[in-house]
């Protein structure tokens, strides 16, 4: 951190908040609010003469409230930058600090918040995590009993730079405890609070236990655990060392902790699973290994940066396996526990990775993107005529489309990922996707259904999952009927309702719309748009006269080759059960109704050209 502060190309803005981020990869404009410190950064040398004269004492956040701090303070002695800050909520403006500062004249009570505009090429989000407050888990007594602590409080109590100068004392009486119990998985792996495993608590608990054992060899230390998770390099050996040094491990999650009011000792009731008995263990101090939780304010920052959060509230990576550092917003990267609970080695590794990912972009003048972005025909956009529309912006998972009143929608190509949700949803067919235009897709459909369409199963597939699933079916030699014909688009969100209508108008026997499972969607919300769009389509088709079983929606992952083969086989069977004659009759009867549905599409010259000819030329 000190090196970072000294580096000529690194500028640290601490005590500041990101307010707004505009622009795109390579061209971000960031608005930062620098909060007033009331201490001038260029004058304060961190000598610390001001703090002792301050008459105000408030709980020190860094010490988990165990020790006090003054109203003029640094968060901790090793803080970078080492500049004092006046906490105006508690300052009484006695100006004693001003006198202590003397000729440095570093204190300035007239400082105002300042807005800073930054032009940056890339952004790395490393906002870390918070610690779960175990107060709601009443059976563990945190907040009721003084000698029940969280692990981070214990961390401060045995730290030689901490408030007790490294002497572990019980909050109730200041004595050194002889029996300490640790409780694992407090608030994590718990469907009432946080479902996920916090990952690093097992290791820090073992570390704390060994530290205490080193300081007080006679101390009886017990760790209550459900499962010990020690999977990384040398972790298992560390765990084994703790067992060898006499730390007791009891498998069983404590049911409750109660206090003996006379001794202020704690009684832990738990089932020792390996004994099959319920035990009462008396300890003088209980330490709760609390869950790592998303940072407060993570939601606001996520909105500012257009990066989604996973169900547990941590920032979501672009892809869990293949792009674990990138975010869905190009040029924004994740490092450390902001993405999910992580220990120090993993955070350092991800930080280095994020720096390298960003460096790749910073090193070049031009950045190439996939040419499959959306494109607006300005003359067709209804918003340009003064009518309010803006449907496309609400469907874009990346905020890549801006709509100003009276102007055509505008796509920022550098932000667009090419899912095609806007294209499929635009009621006026005013947007298209390069290399996946309506005309191109319809042309494919016409070619695939040119002969005996009523005997064919037409499958619309998304690039990432169901197309991969079809591929897996092929490479794994899963057999399925040869009647299927596939069309690939980038995302199920690109699948226009009109594609289905057109396929049936052309006489297709069966139509399958397929894409990723919701949690696998490669375009954040693409699959959800598709699922919503197709939800009632089968019944709409039925009203027109098409048997509802002829249209099917399936979410198939790239690994589910067997599922792809099964779905096609089932659809082929359904087709044969219905019979070609019935399908032909249905098609005959609905062709005109379907053609009417496609009337608006015909207004697009490019599309009309592909649609035209044959029996579909006339509408009315």
């Amino acid at each position, binding site marked *: 951190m000190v090196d970072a502060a000294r580096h000529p190309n690194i500028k640290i803005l601490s005590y500041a908040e990101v307010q707004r981020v505009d622009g795109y990869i390579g061209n971000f404009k960031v608005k930062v609010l620098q909060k007033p410190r009331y201490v001038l950064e260029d004058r304060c040398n961190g000598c610390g003469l001001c703090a002792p004269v301050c008459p105000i004492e408030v709980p020190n956040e860094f010490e988990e409230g165990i020790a006090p701090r003054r109203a003029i303070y640094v968060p901790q002695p090793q803080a970078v930058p080492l500049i004092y800050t006046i906490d105006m909520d508690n300052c009484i403006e006695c100006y004693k600090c001003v006198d202590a500062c003397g000729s440095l004249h570093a204190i300035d009570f007239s400082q105002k918040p300042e807005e800073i505009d930054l032009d940056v090429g890339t952004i790395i989000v490393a906002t870390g995590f918070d610690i779960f407050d175990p107060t709601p888990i009443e059976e563990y007594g945190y907040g009721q009993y003084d000698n029940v602590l969280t692990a981070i409080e214990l961390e401060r109590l045995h730290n030689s730079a901490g408030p007790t100068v490294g002497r572990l004392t019980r909050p109730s009486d200041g004595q050194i405890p002889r029996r300490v119990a640790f409780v694992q998985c407090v608030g994590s792996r718990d469907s009432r609070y946080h479902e996920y495993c916090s990952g690093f608590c097992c290791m820090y608990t073992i570390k704390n236990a060994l530290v205490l054992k080193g300081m007080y060899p006679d101390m009886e230390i017990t760790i209550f655990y*459900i499962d010990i998770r020690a999977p990384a390099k040398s972790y298992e050996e560390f765990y084994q060392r703790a067992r060898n040094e006499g730390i007791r491990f009891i498998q069983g999650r404590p049911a409750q902790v109660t206090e003996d009011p006379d001794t202020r000792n704690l009684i832990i*009731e*738990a089932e020792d699973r390996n004994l099959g008995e*319920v035990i009462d263990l008396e300890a003088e101090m209980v330490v709760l290994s609390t869950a790592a939780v998303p940072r407060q304010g993570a939601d606001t920052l996520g909105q500012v940066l257009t990066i989604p959060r996973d169900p547990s509230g941590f920032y979501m990576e672009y892809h869990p396996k293949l792009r674990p550092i990138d975010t869905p917003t190009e040029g924004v990267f994740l490092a450390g526990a902001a993405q999910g609970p992580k220990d120090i080695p993993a955070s350092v590794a991800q930080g280095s990775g994020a720096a390298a990912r960003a460096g790749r972009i910073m090193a070049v003048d031009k950045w190439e993107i996939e040419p499959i972005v959306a494109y607006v025909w300005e003359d067709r956009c209804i918003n340009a005529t003064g009518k309010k529309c803006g449907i496309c912006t609400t469907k874009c998972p990346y905020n890549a489309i801006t709509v100003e009143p009276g102007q055509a929608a505008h796509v920022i190509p550098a932000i667009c990922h090419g899912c095609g949700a806007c294209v499929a949803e635009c009621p006026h067919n005013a947007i298209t996707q390069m290399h996946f235009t309506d005309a191109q897709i319809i042309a494919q459909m016409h070619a695939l259904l040119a002969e005996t369409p009523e005997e064919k199963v037409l499958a619309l597939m998304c690039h990432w999952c169901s197309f991969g699933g079809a591929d897996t079916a092929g490479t794994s030699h899963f057999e399925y009927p040869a009647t299927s014909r596939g069309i690939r688009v980038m995302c199920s969100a690109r699948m226009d309702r009109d594609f289905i209508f057109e396929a049936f108008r052309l006489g297709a026997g069966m139509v399958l719309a397929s894409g990723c499972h919701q949690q696998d969607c490669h375009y954040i919300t693409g699959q959800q748009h598709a699922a919503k769009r197709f939800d009632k389509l089968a019944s709409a088709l039925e009203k027109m006269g098409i048997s509802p079983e002829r249209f099917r929606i399936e979410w198939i992952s790239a690994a589910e080759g067997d599922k792809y083969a099964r779905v096609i086989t089932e659809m082929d069977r359904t087709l044969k059960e219905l019979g070609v004659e019935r399908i032909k009759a249905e098609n005959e009867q609905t062709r005109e109704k379907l053609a009417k549905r496609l009337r608006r599409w015909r207004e697009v010259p490019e599309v009309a050209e592909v649609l035209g000819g044959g029996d579909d030329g006339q509408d009315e």
Partner: protein
Amino acid sequence: MAKMNDFLGQVLATRGGERVMDCYQCGTCSGSCPVFTEMKYGPRQIMHMIHLGLEDKVLPSPDIWYCVSCYSCASRCPRGIEIADVMAALRSLALQKGFTQDKEAKLCRAFAETVRQHGRSFEPELLARYYARTLDLPGLLRQIPLGLKMLYKGKLPLLPKHVENTRAWRKIFAPAEGKEKETEC
């Protein structure tokens, strides 16, 4: 979904049993259970045996009858499993499948019948019904000193007291009687 044994499938289909698969064997339930020492296995092991499909161990076990429905297990379960409801469902399954020979099951049924009769418990009748089922004459004789003591202190009524509104009471019992003759108690 993993292949399930029949018994697990039956438990999953009960009210409260929907989430038994979520159990990760932490032991919070057994540690919380006030009657754990009376039990043979305890709720955690019962969950495990349900997963394994050990119907012939679970249903005849006294544990399901010892459960006092205090719900400590369910309120503390980090997996959100309604363990006390699972216990009730197991009692129901045990009766349906004819596991009615344990003395715990017999006591429960004797109690249910007594309460159905009067709307509240009536100890002499409960004893009569229970010992009639178990045919445990020495057991009944052993109760006599306690019975006399209770009688002396006025704790043992000689005639049953009925609830005031018997019609309303019957209404409460009716759905359970209609549904299944062999209900849980």
